[in-house]
């Protein structure tokens, strides 16, 4: 459960009001106690720098909080923004305002190029690559004396006269920051933002619902850099200078720490962190710089070890404890059995999926696999496998350990590429296609361990899947949470998850998560449902109910089912056709009865190794 919407909006309102009222408040304080720091200082230095820091950190959080990317290059973009203004002022004698307007474009371009390079690597290596790139930027700024002024930097940038008053400057900066924040906020609420969240929550699943993950990551990287550039440009305006140290990799720690302080889970969280940080830096930091570092370090350490979600998640933690004391029931305490018991198969049978498949088993070949092979090192995991899956059929693949079933499934879902062979779906050659392309054809995988978006709500899981699948996520405008709400709720009601729609999917019981997966598959218009050992880890009751559910849905909706299982009760209870694999090859195929009666099949399961008793007992040394 997250902090309710109302509370968040209230907190945001407080923050905004405070920001707007800062100059008069500071003036008031100065009148009341003349010994305290001057209003000019408060507004000019603290207030303005806090605003800019907030913008910088929130732009960083687009990557961190919304897309799950950890970059060390954010200082570089800040610096480039500052230099854009500085160089245009110094060399072309432009006023700072056009420089400011140009900065997002310049820095955005830099972000696009460097982001493209950085995204060649993943995870930790991506982060290190951003570090390397930002260092290169720093060295360029430092060394290119003739252009950037070298380690001296560029000084004496004076803003236009109307901005010479600190209070006016403050409101100007506030206005620019507000515009930027509004744009970013609109972005994160839009279907585009929904795609980012899906990617953050479950990269693989995001791909399998139709998102080209790398493209979205590059997009958010570029946008994030552009706004960091605006922050840097504003810095040049209020601090009147630009210098290489702005781009040092250690400076990238600022937005990270600020975001951590305020929490990466909310949009304005980093703004709160910026306010706290600025205040700390200018109180403790000015007088006792060493102590400031220690205090800041201790705070960061404390947050990381105790509440990595920042202040925001600490609040959540407290709420949860309080709720437990009150005795309210937590969803995870319900057992899977109870959860699955709530599923009303008839309700599912009554609804129609997004793409209606009213036609029943037509007997046409939906999936044709020809001579598919995949080798890992010296081992041929899948060796010339061919099979046909007819539309509307329930087709099982069985085989002992190492038979190649999982590899086959990974090949069919695009997770890995085959060495040779062909896969044709609905008449279209889909060999070697990536997962996000396959979902558009209607191939879906379900009942895997990590197949949902844990921190999104149940409703969002469904909505965002639909958005991604229908290609809506390229739109940066609109509110994602309002789209397809009714359709999604209908599906949720049908699988019994109606009451849980606002819960975080990761908190659902096992059985509920499986039901959610099924709902998502239906929402995606899946025609061929692939289940890889769907009942692994389920109790006998869960198994029974889950497979009843699957069976019911598949039968009535005319879906085609291809699954592999070890539980023979399930296989023989559900399947129309059984393919037996052994050591990467297809051994036999036929109706369940035929397979059961096949002596070859019995052999591979029950063993064909017949040992003679050893000649002597003394065999190995004693």
């Amino acid at each position: 459960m997250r902090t309710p919407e109302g509370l968040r909006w209230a907190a945001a309102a407080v923050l905004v009001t405070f920001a707007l009222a800062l100059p008069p408040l500071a003036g008031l304080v100065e009148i009341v106690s003349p010994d305290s720091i001057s209003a000019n200082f408060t507004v000019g230095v603290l207030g303005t720098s806090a605003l800019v820091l907030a913008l910088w950190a929130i732009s960083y959080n687009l990557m961190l909080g919304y897309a799950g990317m950890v970059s060390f290059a954010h200082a570089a973009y800040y610096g480039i923004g500052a230099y854009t203004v500085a160089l245009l002022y110094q060399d072309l004698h432009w006023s700072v305002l056009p420089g400011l307007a140009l900065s997002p474009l310049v820095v955005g371009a830099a972000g696009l190029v460097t982001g493209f390079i950085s995204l060649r690597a993943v995870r930790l290596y991506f982060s290190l690559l951003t570090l390397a790139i930002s260092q290169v930027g720093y060295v360029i700024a430092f060394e290119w004396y003739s252009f950037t002024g070298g380690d001296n930097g560029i000084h004496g940038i004076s803003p236009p006269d109307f901005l010479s008053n600190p209070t006016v400057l403050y409101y100007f900066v506030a206005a620019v920051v507000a515009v930027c924040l509004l744009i970013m906020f609109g972005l994160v609420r839009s279907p585009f933002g929904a795609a980012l969240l899906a990617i953050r929550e479950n990269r693989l699943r995001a791909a399998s619902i139709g998102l080209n993950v790398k493209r979205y990551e590059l997009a958010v990287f570029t946008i994030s850099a552009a706004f960091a550039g605006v922050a840097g440009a504003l810095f040049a305006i209020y601090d009147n200078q630009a210098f290489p140290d702005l781009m040092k990799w250690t400076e990238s720690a600022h937005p990270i720490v600020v975001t951590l302080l305020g929490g990466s889970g909310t949009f304005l969280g980093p703004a709160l962190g910026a306010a706290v940080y600025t205040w700390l830096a200018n109180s403790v930091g000015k007088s006792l710089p060493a102590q400031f570092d220690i205090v800041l370090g201790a705070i960061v350490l404390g947050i990381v070890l105790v509440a990595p979600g920042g202040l925001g998640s600490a609040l959540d933690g407290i709420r949860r404890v309080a709720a437990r004391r009150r005795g309210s029931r937590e969803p995870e305490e319900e057992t899977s059995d109870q959860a699955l018991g709530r599923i009303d198969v008839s309700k599912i049978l009554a609804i129609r999926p997004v793409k209606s498949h009213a036609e029943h088993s037509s007997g046409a070949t939906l999936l044709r696999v020809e001579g598919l092979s995949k080798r890992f090192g010296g081992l041929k995991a899948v060796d010339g496998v061919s099979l046909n899956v007819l539309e509307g059929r329930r087709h099982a693949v069985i085989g002992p350990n190492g038979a190649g079933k999982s590899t086959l499934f990974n090949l069919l879902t695009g997770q890995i590429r085959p060495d040779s062979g062909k896969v044709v779906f609905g008449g279209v050659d889909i060999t070697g296609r990536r997962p996000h392309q396959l979902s558009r054809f209607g191939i879906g995988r379900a009942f895997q361990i990590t197949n949902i978006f844990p921190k999104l709500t149940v409703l969002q899981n469904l909505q965002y899947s639909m958005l991604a699948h229908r290609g809506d996520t390229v739109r940066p405008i609109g509110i994602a949470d309002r789209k397809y709400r009714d359709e999604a709720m209908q599906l949720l009601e049908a699988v019994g998850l109606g009451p849980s729609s606002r819960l975080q999917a990761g908190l659902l019981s096992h059985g509920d998560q499986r039901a959610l997966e099924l709902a998502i598959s239906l929402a995606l218009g899946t025609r061929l449902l692939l289940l890889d050992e769907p009942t692994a880890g389920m109790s006998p009751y869960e198994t029974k109910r889950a497979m009843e559910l699957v069976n019911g849905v598949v039968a009535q909706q005319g879906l085609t089912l291809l699954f592999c299982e070890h539980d023979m009760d399930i296989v023989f209870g559900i399947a129309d056709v059984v393919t037996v694999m052994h050591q990467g090859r297809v051994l036999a195929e036929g109706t369940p009865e035929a397979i059961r009666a096949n002596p070859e099949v019995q052999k591979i399961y029950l063993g064909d190794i017949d040992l003679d008793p050893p000649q002597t007992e003394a065999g190995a040394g004693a």
Partner: protein
Amino acid sequence: MPHQHCLREAGFGMSASTVALTVLAGLSAASVLFLVASGLSLVFGALRVINMAHGSLYMIAAFLTTAIVSLFAQPTIGFVLALVLAPVAVALLGALIEILVLRRLYGREHLLQLLATYALVLVFAGGVRIVFGSQNRIIRPPDFLTGGVSLGTITFPTYKFFLMFAALVVAAGLYVLLYRTTLGRNVRAAVADPELLNASGVNVARLFTTVFMIGAGLAALGGVLISPDQAVGLGMDTDVLVAAFAISVIGGLGSLTGSFVGALLVGLATSFGIMFPATSRWSLAFIFVLMAVVLMIRPWGLFGRPETN
């Protein structure tokens, strides 16, 4: 004629002695970098953690050295004492870090580990500032290591030869440790399969602490050795860290050979880069460009192994 002038400027008229000096300078720079990078790499290989505070440990040892050396009139006694005490003290600090902070973070996202160790960077930077002040400190090498060694036409500082000698000794020592001792064998096993090691009766948690202490000791050794050679000041921590990152990435995180080769590459590249006026400004950037290229095409470095989950 301008053309010839440029050629000479670009170093094509370099004499053998200049080349030799450049090589030696590169090797001596590589020596300390190797010490620091090998510690970082070792810790990553076994614990799968990137310790941002690694540079801080180096800096702490450097400041400790200057403090100890300034207690004695004779730099020799102080230096030798520091050579023994500083690594030990910093290793103990490392043990504290591993037990109190890192243990809670194994298996969690890398970002949390980076943030936690970064927090330590802040704490240590502040601590060093409070204890030692913010002034740069300079100490002289011990008497028997001052002066220069003449090789034909060139003279090269004795102390820098000592650095190279020390690095070779440590490299040999690490090799012996890893391949000829029980501890080293356990460390290599931990890099390969810590779960299996646990099931084989080895206290992997304690092993991790030991490895971290060794890594810290190596960083500290680097800090001790660099003190008579360069001014010791705040900012040492991050400067050496980013160089150590570059080396470890290029050579391969978790590989001793990789740290060695990487340090050589970086030391020599920087040294040669500085020699040519045309490139001297960009020599620093070159290392990071190389780091970027490696990350793009072969992220596990020249001698590393791809991570198997």
